[in-house]
């Protein structure tokens, strides 16, 4: 088919992209053309403003294209285009309801582009886009605007935190949530805040305050949004962080190697540069101190007031329109706050009373919430009737095994937090369930038993106490904890540090076991050296604080020396005139020792670094299965699954299909059965490796080998000899190319 020729007269050219390209290269020469296009835009805008809703396409160039063009080159002519951003803003704010979708999107895109070119400031952009986001009925526009707003906030917080912008934005969101509590507009505030929280752009109390107000709204969607944030926002944030941290690692060596082999192009060299930059950036990120992020629950200003108002507004209030699921969410939040901050809400426990029956839908969530709400400052009088009720309603021979195990688990979880909620007779009854035939109930009963062996063995019958507890009781080590009794606090992991130091010291002593005569003098010298070392390190630290870890780690500074006699020789004693005080106290309890380390000695930066290291090590060890279970973090919620516990075990035998599915669970599916060689070969091909000589020979075309094979028969003896000789020779040399390097 012949291309139809356009007559030269028919053709009309209007190539804006071309002009744009030329202007980018040489703005000065094309200023007249740009001016013409600017007038063109002005005229089109005039036409448009006269009838904004009209859909007349005006000839070759539409207003949309002109806007696009101007936005792209506006930075070249700032004086001519100084009104341009404002004009776009006006069009968008006045006519966004009737604009054509394409034009609307183009205007939004152009505004963002102008923001990138610094012709428009972030605050103005956000002030323009945000009201439209809230008011527009178009779903696509909302999605676009949300994305753009988020992107702008992210980019303006990319290098440093833009406090001013964040504050204004947070104030806008806060006002939006608080101004009209019945409207669902607050959802946008929630969405935005949650997203920014997830990305760790907003981590301050003000963002939490927005969410707090949202959860106290009258609209149920907004309430649920706010509550969900508190229940799951931090977890989301952690996951996001993990995701971003385990991006695929770049093998710099491989990249460099590939460049050495392949053809050198500018694109490839750029790729290497990029890889280098990425690796460098990651290194720097790794070395940066971890940002201190508090969870949203800790950033609340007035947890007591907040929890009370949540409880009275959404749960106690009979007119509240929330359904059961939503109420459960609110209840979870309230009880978490109560448990975490040790709050006291008067009617919370009596509120639970009516929900604690096995027939109540999702009763396990209620049980979990109740357990979450109990802490050691709750009066036992409040909890005891609840425990009694759970025992009566759930735990009986007549009830189903799942119900009984859930009840037992719930009682255990309550007693972990407030042991005084249990009375002796009830406990002894409940412990009997460890003899149940059902596995779930049995495990739950055992759990309760082992708990009380730890916290208060006196309440158990003598034969149930077990060996450790009995011995502990006799020696007076285990005592009942009184109401609101607090343990003396310490520094976490300090005992680990103590132990480590002792070991180090022992090693040292072993090393210089011979030269331990002139210790006192040496120690004096050591002392001097220690202080000197501290000072020197200090100076260095002020230069670059990145080197904290490199401080000489076995240098210690002591202030007083009323300790350590049992550590053997007084190797680190400072002042001998205090020696009279120094007496060994072998019966000293562990706690006292630990507190002494902190109170008698200034921990050097090296000590602190070591302490951190030991702490993480201990945490990792705790996670390894087989070691005694990791303790729950204070911030972690108690879930309904935990209350249900091993109920799955009591559900009877699994069907055949279930068993098969269970067996298949861990295994990866293999698509086809192949020989090992075939698999190996496939893997090799996947990795892009070449074939061996043997394989090449095997694959060689038959016709190519035919001639040689034929001629082999016709060789004379001399020829054969020569060939064999040559072959032997080659074999010695190591192939045709020879092992030249190897010989030399």
């Amino acid at each position, binding site marked *: 088919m012949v291309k139809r020729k356009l007559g030269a*007269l028919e053709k*009309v050219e*209007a190539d804006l992209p071309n002009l744009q390209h030329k202007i980018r290269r040489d703005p000065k020469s094309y200023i*007249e053309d740009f001016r013409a296009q600017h*007038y*063109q835009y002005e*005229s089109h805008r005039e036409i448009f*403003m006269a009838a904004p809703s009209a859909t*007349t396409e005006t000839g*070759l160039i539409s207003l949309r294209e002109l806007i696009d063009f101007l936005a792209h080159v506006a930075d070249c002519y700032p004086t001519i285009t100084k009104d341009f951003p404002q004009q776009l803003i006006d069009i968008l704010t006045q006519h966004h309801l009737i604009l054509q979708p394409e034009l609307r999107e183009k205007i939004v895109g152009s505004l963002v582009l102008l923001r990138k070119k610094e012709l428009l400031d972030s605050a103005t952009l956000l002030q323009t886009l945000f009201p439209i986001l809230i008011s527009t009925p178009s779903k696509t526009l909302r999605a676009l605007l949300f994305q753009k707003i988020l992107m702008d906030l992210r980019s303006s917080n990319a290098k440093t935190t833009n406090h001013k912008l964040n504050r204004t934005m947070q104030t806008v969101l806060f006002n939006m949530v608080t101004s009209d509590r019945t409207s669902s507009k607050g959802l946008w505030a929630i969405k935005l805040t949650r997203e920014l929280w997830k990305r760790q752009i907003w981590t301050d109390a003000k963002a939490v305050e927005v969410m707090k107000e949202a959860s106290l709204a009258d609209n149920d969607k907004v309430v649920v949004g706010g509550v969900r944030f508190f229940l799951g926002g931090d977890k989301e944030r952690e996951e996001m962080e993990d995701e971003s941290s385990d991006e695929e690692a770049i093998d710099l060596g491989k990249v460099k190697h590939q460049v050495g082999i392949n053809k050198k192009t500018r694109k490839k060299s750029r790729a290497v540069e990029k890889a280098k930059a990425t690796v460098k950036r990651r290194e720097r990120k790794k070395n940066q101190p971890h940002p201190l992020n508090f969870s949203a629950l800790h950033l609340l200003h007035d947890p007591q007031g907040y929890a009370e108002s949540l409880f009275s507004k959404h749960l106690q209030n009979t007119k509240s329109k929330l359904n059961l699921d939503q109420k459960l969410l609110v209840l979870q939040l309230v009880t978490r706050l109560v448990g975490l901050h040790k709050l006291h809400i008067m009617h919370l426990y009596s509120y639970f009373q009516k929900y604690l029956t096995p027939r109540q839908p999702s009763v396990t969530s209620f049980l979990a919430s109740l357990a979450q709400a109990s802490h050691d400052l709750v009066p036992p009088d409040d909890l005891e009737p609840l425990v009694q009720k759970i025992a009566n309603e759930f735990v009986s021979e007549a009830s189903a095994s799942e119900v009984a195990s859930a009840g037992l688990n719930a009682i255990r979880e309550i007693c972990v937090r407030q042991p005084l909620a249990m009375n002796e007779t009830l406990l002894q009854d409940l412990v009997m369930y460890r003899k149940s035939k059902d596995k779930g109930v049995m495990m739950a009963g055992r759990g309760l038993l082992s708990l009380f062996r730890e916290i208060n063995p006196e309440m158990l019958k003598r034969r149930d106490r077990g060996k450790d507890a009995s011995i502990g009781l006799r020696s007076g080590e285990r005592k009942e904890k009184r109401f609101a009794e607090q343990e003396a606090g310490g520094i976490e992991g300090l005992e680990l540090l103590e132990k480590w130091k002792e070991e180090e010291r022992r090693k040292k002593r072993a090393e210089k076991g011979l030269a331990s005569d002139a210790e006192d003098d040496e120690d004096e010298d050591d002392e001097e050296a220690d202080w000197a070392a501290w000072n020197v390190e200090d100076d260095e630290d002020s230069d670059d604080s990145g080197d904290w870890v490199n401080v000489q780690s076995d240098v210690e500074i002591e202030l007083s020396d009323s300790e350590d006699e049992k550590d053997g020789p007084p190797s680190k004693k400072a002042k001998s005139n205090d020696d009279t005080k120094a007496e060994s106290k072998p019966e000293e309890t562990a706690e006292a020792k630990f507190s002494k380390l902190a109170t008698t000695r200034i921990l050097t930066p090296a000590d602190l670094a070591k302490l951190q290291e030991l702490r993480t090590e201990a945490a990792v060890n705790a996670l390894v299965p087989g070691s005694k279970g990791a303790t729950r973090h204070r911030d972690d919620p108690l879930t309904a699954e935990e209350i249900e516990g091993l109920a799955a075990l009591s559900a009877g035998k699994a069907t055949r299909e279930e068993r098969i599915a269970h067996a298949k669970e861990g295994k990866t599916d293999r698509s086809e059965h192949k020989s090992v060689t075939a698999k190996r070969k496939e893997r090799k091909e996947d990795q892009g490796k070449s074939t061996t000589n043997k394989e090449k020979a095997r694959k060689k075309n038959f016709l190519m080998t035919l001639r040689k094979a034929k001629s082999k028969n016709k060789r004379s003896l001399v020829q054969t000899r020569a060939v064999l000789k040559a072959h032997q020779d080659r074999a010695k040399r190591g192939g045709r190319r020879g092992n030249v390097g190897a010989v030399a």
Partner: protein
Amino acid sequence: MGSSAKKKKEKQKDFQKAKLKVGKAKGKPENFTDTSFKTKGITLTQQSLTLTAPSIQSQFTHHVSLLNSKSDAQRRDSLAHLTTHITSKPTSQPLPQPVSTLLPTLSPLILDASTNVRTQLLKLLRALPPADVEDHVVQLMPYIRAGMTHLAADIRVTAIEVLSWLVEIAGEAVVSCAGGWIKTLNCFLSVLGWHTEESSKWSANRAAFGKAGAKGRPMVKVLGVLAEFLHAGIGEDEDDEDVVMGGAEVESGYGSGDGGDGGFPIVQADVHMVPKTAQPYVYLNLFGSPRDEEGEMYETREERFRVFKSRFLVAVERGVESARQDGGEVGRASSSVSKVLKEARGVDWEG
């Protein structure tokens, strides 16, 4: 070897000739596609069953609606039809549709990509009754201005021609409508490339971007129209004397001097009367968006000259000078502009 023979045979098969036989139908070619289909009935969704031909009125309306058609030829033909219809009907008879409804569909065609459509449009515009167009100059002007700064040179030329026609029939309205003076002059300067000192030099790259266009010597034409435009705006009102009273009232209220037609006590009565134009209070801008300096109306010659002097005079004089130095046809065309300028200055001195 067996396979090779087989392959040969297979290859041969592709080039075997079908034998033609007398009395038998010719075989179908290989790439034949069967497009026949069977159906139980054929329904026509639209069927015109009127016996009488459509009235002229309805034909006219139909063709007006076809002006938005996608095809160039269709638009052109419809324009041609409308033109013949308007020109052939007696002038006493009104148009089947008023100009006010025609213009919104016609004006976007100034920016049409097809040359034929634009030439046809020009013919149609010329056929419209001038008195009716005068009231709708404001709506037409943005399209003309958009055309004047268009990337395509041909469209620029068409727009200039349309402007020339409009100045001819309604010069006063063109220069005094909102945005009609400053914005249009800006467009002129942009078309001529006279905005800055560098760009108006003869050595400057005149045809900076865009195709030069098929119609030659656009510069000459633009200069001519500029002269007409300036004359309408700031030239001498030579037609003051021989205009009948109604026209004079509109154009310059106090220009008619003290030849008051009213009784003795009422001197210059027409100044105090309600103006007789179609939109007498449009300058108040009661319903439009607020105007800036460029979009303002400049209703009197003095105002226009003041603005012209402060903003454009230097650039225009510089441009005219360089055009004169170019010589040739451009130089000759520039003389008409300079004549108007001289005239305007003269009037200004008097006033």
